[in-house]
């Protein structure tokens, strides 16, 4: 073996605040995406402007199927109740998590190791759970936590007429209210892409070990594959 594994060990990888916010935010995202699609179904078109340009949408889509929406039956009012409630849950959780999230900012060592890390990811089936997040992993979390998730939150706020009265610059930041709605949709797609990658990496690097570490905090590292 070229790179002998360090001796197997069980390390305390995830502090309680991370574990708790992870599961609350995971549930919130599931509810937010499904209730968001319920809301989207009331007018499944996006516009690149402040007001809707009905004849010229940026994107007009078919309605999301019932099994992707919350509630499953079509009801905009209930979809909005779920969405706004869990937007609060997600937002407050994100604040709680934010203090810890600074650890995800890539440092110099990460940057210098990013190419080797990229190379290791070309053979993802050989990746193993490690003591610390690898540079590519850190960059992915960094991008989601510092750009996609804030984009989802801030573009969502820009959809509220009352918030827009308090902060007219907010929808303007996105190119208008309807454009903010399109950004909000794009952020949702970005989060789904991240979740898909995240689940794939968990599946590849020992799903039970990873799952347990996000419940108890303890992760087995350096053992045989």
């Amino acid at each position, binding site marked *: 073996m070229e790179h002998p594994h360090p001796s197997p060990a069980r390390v305390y990888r995830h502090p309680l605040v991370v574990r708790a916010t992870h599961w609350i935010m995971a549930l919130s995202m*599931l*509810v937010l995406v*499904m209730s968001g699609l319920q*809301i*989207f179904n*009331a*007018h499944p*078109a996006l*516009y690149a402007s*402040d*007001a*809707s340009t*009905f004849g010229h949408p940026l994107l007009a889509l078919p309605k999301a199927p*019932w*099994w*992707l*929406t*919350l*509630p*499953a*039956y079509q*009801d*905009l*009012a*209930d979809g*909005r*109740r*779920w969405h*706004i*409630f869990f*937007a*609060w849950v997600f937002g407050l959780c994100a604040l709680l998590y934010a203090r810890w999230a600074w650890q995800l900012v890539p440092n110099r060592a990460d940057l210098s190791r990013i190419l080797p890390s990229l190379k290791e990811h070309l053979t993802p089936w050989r990746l193993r759970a490690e003591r610390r997040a690898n540079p590519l992993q850190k960059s992915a979390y960094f991008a989601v936590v510092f750009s996609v998730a804030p984009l989802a939150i801030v573009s969502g706020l820009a*959809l*509220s*007429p*009352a*918030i*827009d*009265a*308090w902060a*007219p610059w907010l929808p303007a930041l996105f190119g208008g*209210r*309807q454009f903010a*709605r399109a950004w909000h949709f794009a952020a949702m797609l970005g989060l789904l892409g991240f979740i898909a990658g995240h689940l794939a990496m968990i599946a590849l690097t020992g799903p039970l070990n990873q799952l347990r570490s996000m419940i108890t905090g303890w992760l087995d590292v350096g053992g045989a594959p």
Partner: protein
Amino acid sequence: MRRGGFLAFAAAGMLAGCGRLGDTLTESPLIHRILAAPERLDLALLGAGQPLAREYTARDLSPVFRRNGFDPPSDERYVHWSRSGWLGYRLFVRGLVERPQSFSLYELRNRFARRDQITRHDCVEGWSVIGKWSGPRLGDVLSVCRPTPRAKFVVFHCMDDDNQGTRYYESLDLRQAYHPQALLAYALNDQPVPVENGAPIRLKVPTQLGYKSAKYVQAIELVPSLGGAYGNGGYWEDQGYEWYAGV
């Protein structure tokens, strides 16, 4: 791949399960109360001041002000009014006011200062249109009628219905009613409000979603509280939508 197909099937099944579980949860009165909690928080935070909705310029006007909601009233009286320049129509103000009275369109145009505002109308469905609305401030009209100290809410009785006999209605609290941009609009884009947009008088509340801006307003009633005959304070509120539609 069979396994991939199975996994996709299982994932879809789980999601559908979530939606169905959501249905069950949504129908539970306790869960419903919990899910409704943010509305009070939103009102407390966002309703704490009277910021003005952004006002646009004529360049920003939408080519068509999209209509939504119920069909225009079709009763004989309304149709007659609409064909005779609204002669005979009067807007009533009643309830907890010292001077209950009614106003013709002529009086609404001439007794009160006209406010013009080009504002964005955000429909709860997700779309927006920009239109120019003109009319007296709701607050000016209320002041003339002198609400009593017991008056806390303003209920708008409308002439349109859902084709099953239930009339549209809406309500604001007194603070929202005195917002400088809360208008009793008689003109849209410098023309009398068209029938499909709520003629002859439409309430306009640009700091909240479109369903608060009640069309075809016939009477304004000041009341001490909502509930009872006034349900959740509006037709759509009675279908589960938020009374505070600022979010």
